[in-house]
């Protein structure tokens, strides 16, 4: 039997082909991160008192802060660099609706591998988003192109950690979408708090008391902070390498929880027969 990784890559390739079949959606997925940042930058500009014809140094610094946080994790509207776990969930949801999920689960491979394969597709898309945003950053904020190699290592490991964390969460979100017919509730209580409490476009210390406490145990916040530090030299939470360690620890926990939850849900579905009910 082929290794699970090879099978997962094969599933990812299939997902790519299927997504290309939805041509307009695919184009939007590929470009959404660029469209998504536009209103945020425009609001930043206005709040800083600048206009498109007149951008000063303070505005540029504010915009860089927001841009780096967005590139690392922020999801807004439909431009979603955190689409790995939402993508895995919606991917599963779509397979449930088209009826192909059962057919996949009939193959003699781990069912986690099938879900992980969908995650790989979205992880690649996410990596593409981060990369293209950073290329854009080099033009909009030339200082980001002049960072030391050590900083690049921090940014790279932080981004990879966020990918791993998202994939781990993706297993749980896919499980929830299998279990709950309308899994948006899970996205509401997991996805959106993660999005909000990541401090991607604001300072975490401005959050009201209890929310700030929750944000400080959210590993995403540390990944975003490390990424931002790498390109701007400004971090607000911990030592960047410690932050990278926190992200990876979070990723490990998310992966373990995800594997267990997905396994239990698939087993439950096998008992209730709900796999084919949409």
């Amino acid at each position, binding site marked *: 039997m082929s290794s699970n990784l090879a099978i997962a890559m094969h599933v990812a390739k299939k997902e790519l082909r299927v997504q290309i079949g*939805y*041509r*307009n*959606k695919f184009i*939007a*997925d590929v470009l959404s991160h660029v*469209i998504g940042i*536009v*209103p*945020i930058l*425009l*609001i*930043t*500009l*206005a*709040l*800083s*008192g*600048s*206009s*498109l*014809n007149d951008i000063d140094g*303070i505005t540029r610094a*504010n915009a860089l*802060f*927001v841009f780096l946080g967005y590139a690392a994790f*922020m999801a*807004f*509207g*439909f431009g979603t660099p955190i689409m790995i776990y939402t993508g895995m969930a919606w991917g599963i949801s779509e397979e449930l*609706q088209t009826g192909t999920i059962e057919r996949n689960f009939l193959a003699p491979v781990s069912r986690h591998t099938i879900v992980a394969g969908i995650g790989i597709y979205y992880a690649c898309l996410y990596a593409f988003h981060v990369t293209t945003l950073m290329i854009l950053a080099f033009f909009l904020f030339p200082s980001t192109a002049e960072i030391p190699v050590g900083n690049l290592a921090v940014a790279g490991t932080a981004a990879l950690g966020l990918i791993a964390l998202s994939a781990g969460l993706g297993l749980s979100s896919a499980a929830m979408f299998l279990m*709950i*017919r*309308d*899994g*948006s*509730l899970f*996205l*509401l209580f997991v996805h*959106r708090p993660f*999005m*909000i409490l990541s401090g*991607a*476009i*604001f*300072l975490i210390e*401005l*959050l*009201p008391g209890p*929310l700030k406490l929750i944000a400080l145990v959210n590993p995403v916040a540390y990944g975003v902070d490390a990424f931002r530090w790498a390109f701007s030299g400004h971090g607000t939470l911990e030592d960047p390498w410690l932050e990278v360690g926190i992200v990876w620890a979070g990723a490990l926990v998310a992966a373990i929880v995800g594997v267990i939850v997905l396994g239990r849900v698939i087993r439950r579905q096998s008992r209730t027969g709900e796999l084919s009910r949409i």
Partner: protein
Amino acid sequence: MLVQSRARSWFITASSTGFFFVAPLVLMGKTIIGEKGERLGPFSELSGYDNYTGYLAVPLCFAFLTNSAYSWIGQRIRSEQQSGTLERLLISLKYPISLLLGGAWAHISFLLFFIVVGIASLSLIADLDLNIDWPAAIVSGLLHLYAVYGFAFILSSLFLWIRDAFIVQQSISYFVIPILAGAGFPIAIFPGWLQAVSKAIPFTWAFDVERASMLAHTPVSELWDEFVILFVMSSVMWIIGYWMFNVTLKRAKRTGSLGLY
């Protein structure tokens, strides 16, 4: 409504949409302006408002929640197609446009509630400091919804035309409302030609009257001109929406794509 009542999480999700989508932007405002408003001057000069949290929260909450109208109505067509009931419905309906109107009525019954919940929940993380002229605010809200459904009908026609219309519809509404109509910023930051484009969009006017009536206590009498412009623009969208729906429906009947999705 019966179909949606089976999706309990949808109700909870929609109730919290205003908070979850707008809160990060309000907090971003706090980050840029400063916790005590120490860097408020330039923004105040540009927008004419001191209350930046309300400036962001009120129109953005409307924008994100009314955005759901576009997906709601369009998705109704798509899900009727998927379940195979669209053709059956169109046989039963005397006026096919009732399909959209019915979806709109079901949606609007929830929407006003969601907007109130959204603005109230945002006040938990930021001092919105609303200063509302209620008659003007109600007229603004109703005219905004009038514009929203006109635009929704236009976009929903895409579902009879393009198979993966949802994302096209979302892209258009995303590009028009938060970007071109200036849901979260004064259009004064645009160059002149883009400001002219922005003023041709009814939502730009809707956001203006909402801010004026809910943040600056501006009465109806002072917003009369804006209301008339908004009403006329929205009516044009309804006419275009009605026409487009019928055109795309005829096209779908001609090409036999009514049941395809």
